[in-house]
């Protein structure tokens, strides 16, 4: 039986084997060697009456994520039939390739930015009213997949490819007009968020199309024969009706573009199809600038962006990063696999 004295001595002795190490204050030399990685940068700038404070993060992130629903700004909005500023169903970033490997969506140097408006405080001073907040993805590339039910913001898709899909769908006067044009002729245009009559409208849009007053043009630097005549017929004007050029529909449901490959200089063949590797991955692409999501109470031109946002939720998908050919424009883009068990695939 251990008596009290034994227990006491035992308690005193037991810590001894562990007491060789000692915590000592770090000295100045040691402290100066602590690098304190500067992966955060903070900047301020003033533009007119707006001050911006931007916190940038030195972060590289790659991901494959899926969500049933991503919805921002669900509220009644005057003059709009859709219920949300942004509603993306079956959303995903990144994709699963045919051999089971993941092609992640990549972002580089994301940031958070606040916008302040300097207003009178009513007593001769200035107060800083917070009028907007922005989550920026920095540089981004990869597959952006969703059933886009409602989109507020800016999405610009470059349409470029052979004339053949247009010829195939042309009827009436358009059929006659395109009979003598070569199907191999490369033509181009630009599609933006529009309303039902082809007027550019970036608030709660469900259509993307060639805006009223815009033509399909010759893509090459030289002559493209009779297809060059198309430039004289613009969407919604002259011989064309709303969302049509010579009877050819040029406005499309956003939800038919199920996967959009974001990135600059994406490798493409002569028909505008993305060049892919054997397992289905995008063969080559650079990062694209400008993907961001913001909320603001007034129109704001954010730092490092020439995009002027409107009030409400705003998703900016980078200009020039997305291109489809006319086959895809007319019939949509396939959905890439984004889950290992994927009920939505293709």
């Amino acid at each position: 039986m251990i008596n009290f004295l034994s227990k006491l001595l035992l308690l005193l002795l037991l810590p001894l084997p562990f007491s060789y190490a000692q915590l000592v204050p770090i000295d100045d030399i040691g402290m100066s060697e602590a690098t304190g990685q500067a992966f955060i940068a903070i900047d301020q700038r003033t533009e007119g009456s707006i001050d911006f404070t931007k916190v940038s993060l030195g972060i590289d992130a790659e991901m494959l994520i899926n969500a049933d629903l991503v919805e921002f700004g669900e509220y009644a909005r005057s003059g709009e039939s859709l219920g949300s500023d942004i509603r993306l169903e079956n959303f995903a970033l990144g994709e699963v390739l045919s051999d089971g490997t993941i092609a992640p969506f990549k972002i580089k140097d994301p940031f958070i930015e606040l916008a302040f408006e300097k207003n009178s405080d009513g007593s001769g001073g200035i107060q800083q009213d917070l009028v907007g907040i922005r989550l920026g993805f920095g540089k981004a590339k990869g597959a952006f997949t969703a059933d886009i039910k409602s989109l507020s913001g800016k999405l610009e898709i470059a349409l470029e490819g052979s004339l053949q899909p247009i010829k195939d769908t042309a009827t009436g006067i358009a059929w006659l007009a395109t009979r003598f044009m070569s199907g191999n002729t490369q033509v181009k245009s630009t599609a933006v968020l529009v309303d039902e009559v082809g007027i550019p409208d970036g608030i709660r849009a469900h259509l993307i199309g060639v805006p009223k007053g815009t033509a399909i043009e010759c893509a090459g630097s030289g002559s493209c024969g009779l297809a060059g005549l198309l430039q004289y017929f613009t969407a919604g004007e002259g011989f064309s009706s709303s969302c049509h050029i010579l009877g050819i529909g040029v406005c499309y449901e956003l939800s038919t573009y199920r996967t959009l490959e974001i990135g600059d200089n994406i490798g493409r063949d002569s028909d505008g199809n993305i060049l892919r590797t054997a397992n289905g991955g995008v063969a080559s692409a650079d990062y694209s600038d400008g993907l961001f999501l913001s909320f603001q109470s007034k129109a704001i031109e954010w730092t490092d962006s020439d995009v002027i946002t409107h009030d409400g939720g705003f998703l900016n998908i980078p200009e020039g990063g997305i291109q489809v050919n006319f086959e895809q424009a007319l019939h949509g883009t396939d959905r890439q696999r984004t889950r290992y068990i994927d009920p939505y695939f293709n």
Partner: protein
Amino acid sequence: MNKIFLLSFSMLVNVVQADLVSIDDFALSKVDGEGIGLVLEDFIFNAGSETAGGGTIEISGLKGSSGQDVSLHVSQFYILGNGSIRGSVVDGNSTNIGRLSNPFNIELIDGDDVGVANKAVFEFSAPKLHGTTSVFTPTFFNQIGSAGDFTGFNTALFDDDTTTGSRSSERPDIGISVDLEIAAVRTQSLNTHYKRLSIDGSRLRLWGSYDDDVAKTGGRMEGELTLNIYTHDLEFFACNSGDSFGDNSCGTSIHFNDFAAELQLGWGSSQPATFEVNGDGNFVFEIKSLEGICGGANTGIDGCTASSGDQSTDVVERFYSSSGPFSNIYMGEVKVGERSFGNSTISNLQIEYLKVSSHDL
């Protein structure tokens, strides 16, 4: 006396010779998980601005993108009872961090119960959710044709005086006010305030693992983090440097009202999360990729289920079921100034792979 020396000597020898060995299933089954509870009752924390040469919290060494020095001076950091009015009501306004009947908990649990087979798991957990397992009702779980509006949000957690009244004293107000100094000029005071913050149901689990379990090489720590954040109001606003809430220079705010986030990062040993710091001082946080989970070529519309029928198939099926890892985020109202932008939702977010690494800007 001889007995004392003999006992002491033998105990010391035992300490030196002790060796850590894996705990076997039989022994593990006896781990009862009592753990250690942590509770801070009548807690007040309020770090204010510098007074009479006293210390303050300052974060320096940051840079702007053009190289100018940036410092953050914390002018107020508080954890107070709810109703603090952005940290202005301090005296007598205490809060409880946990309670004896539902404390923060540190314990060792049986990994077999939490998806980490044959291992003991360290768990640090916040108080359990009160009266409900989640504030969300899962939505449509990857089923074609059943996508509908997100209506599953349960606001009971915010109704202090009804279903969860007994816990209202455990939801503190937390806030921080920071003076931003750029190139030696204090330019702005940035304020962040949480009203009635709760992290109930959050937990961190950690366990050890090897690249090669047989050779015991490539040892590392793995884990999973369940992070729940509920707050009645997350508010940001700014003032002139040195000013604080109530001063004229403090303008309109951005509010995220009834904000709830339930995030699951990592999923047992099937998809562990790791956090490491590289030799160059940068961190890497990773949620393990599901690559290879099918056990075969992944072609065909049914993906994994078409190519294998072994245990891995079960894992992937569970991953995409309601028992898999998923995250939800809900904001009852986003308000910028006086403009309301309604509610926002991210529903049933699943992470098949995530890798985040830092670098110098």
